[in-house]
């Protein structure tokens, strides 16, 4: 049977996935760019926190806004330098996706080079670091320690969810964002500045993803591969949301976290499955979602039904 730790980890990891995946979802919905550079953001967020707390530990309340800003500004810069220019050239979503891949590689190895340099120059371990953030609120219940990191992650996820809900349904900018997402042409006519909406989206998506990177660094530790190891989980969570719906992305994030903690622990005990096969669950969920509930509308899919499925449905 899975222990209480697995349940706690589900919520902890799920919140981190949520913070990151939700950014991926809203940015795709508004800009139609499948942003692979999103993966960098997590690494950037983690290392921003590491660098902030390098000389002396800092309080998490100070780190959060800084990390958010760094991530948001980075993503806005990427949009300014690459995506906005490609959009002016009327690039297809495919081309935008490829360019985001270029950004991903460039930034990833830039970070590698930079961290390697800092490691040599400052003589600190950089490729495996942990941010020294002061997080209060540790609770001990019946011999079980619930760390403040867990509560921070939960609080951040809840705050982000509330913020997104209020932002999208109550504020003028949020409504504009949704209008652009659902119908770019219509939004253009009604006088909503398309480019401003994009910058705002990238800022929010970038900020949330880099926060999730920081939280992951607290959960595990910061490595230059941090984002890359989580690709599958993030994209699977977003695909469950159809790269469109925020509530469904939330469901996806926690489902995958549950599969990776509770389900695998159970299987490990019962049939001796290796714990490192964890990512297979995310892939399995991804395939099932694509087969059974294909996200056709937003993703620009085909109105095509497989014969086998068609026969099954008829029965």
């Amino acid at each position, binding site marked *: 049977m899975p222990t209480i730790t697995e349940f706690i980890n589900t919520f902890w990891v799920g919140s981190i996935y949520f913070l990151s995946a939700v950014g991926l979802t809203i940015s*795709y919905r508004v800009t139609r760019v*499948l942003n692979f550079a999103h993966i960098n953001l997590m690494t950037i967020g983690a290392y921003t926190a590491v660098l902030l707390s390098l000389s002396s530990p800092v309080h998490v309340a100070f780190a959060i806004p800084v990390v958010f800003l760094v991530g948001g500004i980075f993503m806005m810069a990427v949009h300014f330098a*690459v995506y906005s*220019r*490609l959009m002016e*050239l009327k*690039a297809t*979503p*495919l*081309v935008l*996706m*490829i*360019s985001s*891949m*270029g*950004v*991903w*590689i*460039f*930034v*990833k*190895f*830039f970070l*590698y*080079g930079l961290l*390697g*340099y800092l490691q*040599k120059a400052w003589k600190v371990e950089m490729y495996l670091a942990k941010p020294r953030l002061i997080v209060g609120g540790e609770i001990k219940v019946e011999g079980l320690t619930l760390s403040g990191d867990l509560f921070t992650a939960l609080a951040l996820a809840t705050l982000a969810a509330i913020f997104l809900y209020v932002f999208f349904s109550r504020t003028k900018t949020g409504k504009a964002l949704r209008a652009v997402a659902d119908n770019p042409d219509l939004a253009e006519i009604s006088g909503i500045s398309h480019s401003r909406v994009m910058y705002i989206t990238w800022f929010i998506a970038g900020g949330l993803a880099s926060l999730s990177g920081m939280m992951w660094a607290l959960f595990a530790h910061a490595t230059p591969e941090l984002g*890359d190891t989580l*690709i*599958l989980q993030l*994209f*699977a969570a977003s*695909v469950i949301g159809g*790269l469109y719906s925020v509530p469904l992305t939330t469901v996806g994030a926690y489902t995958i976290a549950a599969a990776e903690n509770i389900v695998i622990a159970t299987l490990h005990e019962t049939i001796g499955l*290796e714990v*490192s*096969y964890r*990512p*297979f669950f*995310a*892939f399995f969920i*991804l*395939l099932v979602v*694509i*087969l059974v509930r*294909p*996200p*056709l509308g*937003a*993703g*620009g*899919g*085909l*109105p*095509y039904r*497989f014969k086998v499925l068609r026969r099954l449905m008829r029965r």
Partner: protein
Amino acid sequence: MITFDVIGFLLSWFTFFSIYAILSMSLNLEVGYAGMANFGKVAFYGIGAYVSAYVSMSIFLSLAGLNYPLYSLEATMAMVKLASQNPMLNVSVFILTLILAFLIAGAIGYVIMYPTLRVGPAFFGITVLSFGELLRIFLRHYEPTGATYGLTGIPHPFAWIEDVFVKNLLFTSVTLIILILLFLYAQRLVNSPLGRTMLAIREDEIAALCMGKDVPKVKGKVLFIGSGMAGIAGCILAYYIGSINPNIFVPTVTFDVWAMMILGGIGNNKGAIVGAGIITLVDRATAAINFVFPGLIIDPNFIRWMIIGLIIILVLLFKPAGLIPQTYTWTPAWKIVKPLEEKAKRRREKLLSPFKKISKWFLMGG
């Protein structure tokens, strides 16, 4: 002073060039012609390599009546002895594994990806990328193929030749011949009704579907061929470097191939090969620099990868068509509109004239 082996450098460049040219050509069939963003090229490359390593090592060991696990040190040692005994066996195993690598990689590409062929490019890209990552994770934990250590001692098809130089020369020429054959096949494929249909699907898959094309079926065919070609490339790699492990097949390999294809020109087989030539040359050069001047302050590897990323971004921004832009598909039907075809040909000549001038300048010496 370290002497620099020019011929060795050229041979290794040509081999890697052929491997990557096959990969980028196969990617070009998928992306440039059928519009499928295959971010998991490396998976099929890896499948090809592992299939050929596994099959050839098993054949050698079982023929010798040895019963070691493939990944054991004993097996590796035995391989070294067995490899140089029977020329016929070596070559025929090589040919057999080439075919097997093609078929198995192709079939896996077709089967695994078929469900994703009707969803949009974003979802397809995510699934294939994940598949590549997963395969690597799987191989790292799969005991029969040596887990993280991989397989070592893959019998080289020309191991029976004692002179290392001749051996390498022969192998490199064989890979170049395979490349040329595949190039001719790909050229014929794209200049046929199938190539035309693929292009139509890339242009607008919904319109193609409404015009009666079974889009997932055509895409599946292309995926089969593309993955199969990647499998062949993987097979050549396995024999060339002699030992493979899961860490060779990281996602970054895929991006290398993408950079080659984008640089050369999306939707053009020649472009894919030119791009592969340029980038593998840079690649080998960085490797040589690394070898000649070890211990630089920033790893040249990182700079190399940053350049790859930059190439992708800059080409898309400033020269989206790449070095050699895409043309029409030239089927015999153009003969019906012959006078117009002549006009088109002249336009092509005009496009190519700068290249011709340069080549003339080289040949005539100015």
